[in-house]
C-alpha cells in the first residue's frame, strides 16, 4: 500500500470570508485569482501531478505554507480593514512588478501566467476594492 500524504492543502468548503465571495468579485476576476493565486494563497491547492514527485512537492508545500501565512484569500474578509488595505496594496505592487505569481510557479503552471490584460483586470478591481474598504 502506497503511503499517501494526508495533510495536503485541500478543502471543499469556501468560507464566507473568502475575498471572491465576500466582495462579490466578477467572473473574470474570480477566475484569475483562483487560477494564478489560490494554489499558494488559499486552503485549496490544485496539486495536479506535482504532489507525486517528492522534491517538487516539498518546494510547493513550502511555498504554500509561506504564501498562506502572508495572505490567505479564503480568510481575507476576516482581516482587519487596515490589514486588508495593506494586503491589497501589496498585491497590486507584486502583480505590477511581475513578482507574483512566482516565476518558478509559472514555469510549472503556464496557464497561471498573467498577461497585460489579466493584470489590468485584476489591478483595476483590486484598486477599486482598496478604495472602497
Amino acid at each position: 500500500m502506497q503511503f499517501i500524504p494526508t495533510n495536503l492543502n485541500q478543502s471543499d468548503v469556501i468560507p464566507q470570508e473568502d475575498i471572491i465571495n465576500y466582495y462579490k468579485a466578477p467572473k473574470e476576476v474570480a477566475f484569475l485569482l483562483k487560477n494564478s493565486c489560490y494554489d499558494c494563497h488559499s486552503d485549496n491547492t490544485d496539486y495536479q501531478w506535482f504532489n507525486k514527485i517528492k522534491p517538487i512537492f516539498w518546494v510547493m508545500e513550502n511555498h504554500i505554507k509561506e504564501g498562506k501565512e502572508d495572505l490567505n484569500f479564503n480568510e481575507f474578509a476576516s482581516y482587519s480593514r487596515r490589514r486588508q488595505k495593506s494586503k491589497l496594496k501589496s498585491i497590486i505592487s507584486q502583480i505590477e512588478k511581475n513578482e507574483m505569481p512566482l516565476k518558478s510557479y509559472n514555469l510549472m503552471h503556464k496557464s497561471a501566467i498573467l498577461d497585460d490584460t489579466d493584470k489590468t483586470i485584476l489591478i483595476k478591481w483590486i484598486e477599486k476594492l482598496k478604495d472602497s474598504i
Partner: protein
Amino acid sequence: MKLLKLSMNMLAILLFSITTISCAENKKSENAHHDTEMKSNDGHNHEHNEAASKENNSMNSEKMENSDIIGQDSKKSDLIVSTYLQLKNALVADDSKEAAVAAKDLFKVLKGFDITGFSKEDQKELMDIIEDASEHAEHISDSPIDHQREHFVTLSVDLVDLIAIVGSEKTLYQDFCPMANGNKGAIWLSEIKEIKNPYFGSKMLTCGSVQKEI
C-alpha cells in the same frame, strides 16, 4: 560595494552643490544625534525593564496622579518611536542592511507593546495597528530597499495612528513627499525639522515638507 560607492559619490556631489554653511553644520549635528541614538539602543533592554518596574511601583503607590498615568502611557510608545526613527534614518542613508536590522527590532518592540490600560475601543484599534505595522516591519527586515520603502509608506501611517492613541514623549514632525509611493505621496515621521527623505535617500534628500508637528 558598487552601490555604496555610487551613493557616496552622489551624496558628495549633493553636499558640494549645497553652498550654505548651515547644511554642513546640520550634517554634523545629525551624525551626533545618530551616535546618541545608537548608544541608547545598547541600553534599551535595561531601559525597558526599568520602565516596567517603575510602572509597577506607581500602580502600588497611593499617591498616583492622573499626570503620572499619561506620562507612563506616552513613555510606552518611546521604544516604538525610537526604533521607527532608526529605520527611517537607515532608509535616508540608503542603508538597506541597517534598515533590515532596525525593522527586526521594531517588530520585537511592537509585539511586546502592552495595550492594557487603554479603553476597549482603543485596545481593538491598537491591536489592528500593531498587527499591520509588525507585518510591514517583518517584510522590511527581509527585502531589498525598494520593497522596504514600499512597506515604509503604510508603516508610517500606522505609526501616526498609534501615536494618536498612545501619545509620544518626543516631539515629532510629520513630513510629506508628493513623489513617493508611485507619485501618490507618502508621509514619514521625523525627529528633526530638516527634511531628509527616506523614500528617495541621497537621490532626492531634501524633497518634501513638514505637514505638522506631533
